[in-house]
């Protein structure tokens, strides 16, 4: 469906994004402190969102856009809640 250049470039981009997510996963597992793990999870949310956008180009379907937007929304909410928890020890006071 895609032309000759995109059918080569998009799997490479998907591989690079997957590698980026693996780097974040390593940091999240071995992170020395709790804030490192939260930062790595936030970074992984961003990488997953970009992965969904590239998958949308790869399959030529705009349905992946909704998944990407949803990941962005939930990533913001969860990272903010985690940061609040690190700051105060409570999410909702």
């Amino acid at each position, binding site marked *: *469906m*895609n*032309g*000759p*250049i*995109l059918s*080569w*470039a*998009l799997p*490479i*981009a*998907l591989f*690079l*994004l997957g*590698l*980026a*997510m693996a*780097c*974040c996963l*390593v*940091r999240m597992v071995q992170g020395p*402190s*709790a*804030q*490192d793990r*939260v*930062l*790595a999870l*936030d*970074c992984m949310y*961003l*990488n997953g*969102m*970009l992965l969904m*956008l*590239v998958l*949308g*180009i790869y399959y*030529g*379907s*705009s349905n992946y*856009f909704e998944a*990407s*937007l949803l990941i*962005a*929304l939930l990533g*913001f909410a969860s*990272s*903010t809640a985690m*940061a*609040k928890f*690190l*700051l105060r020890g409570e999410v909702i006071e």
Partner: protein
Amino acid sequence: MTDATLPLWVEIIIAALVLLGATIALLGSLGLLRLPTYFERVHAPSIIATMGCWSIMHGTLLYFSLQGHSLAVHALLIALFVSITVPVTNIFLMRAALFRARRAGKNVPPSLSRTIAVEERDS
């Protein structure tokens, strides 16, 4: 959904934008993995939210605009949303980490706000 293939120059531009964005995402994540302390590490992923996200978003916008013969600005929504929310999250995380480092007695700059300074002096 049309089955018309895109012209070659459009494919080259989209491939360059998407590969650039993916490379920048990998660089930001490598920085997150390699940098030694937390306060250096927190800088690295912000390149994903700015340059990486914007270039992949432009690739998506170009692809769907030329594929569907109408301007597909919905991809712009994600980039705008990310550009608003990521600084908020990063500032929250940095303040939380600074607070925890002060609590643990690490060598970090003292707080400029009065209440926490008084609380530290009393404790």
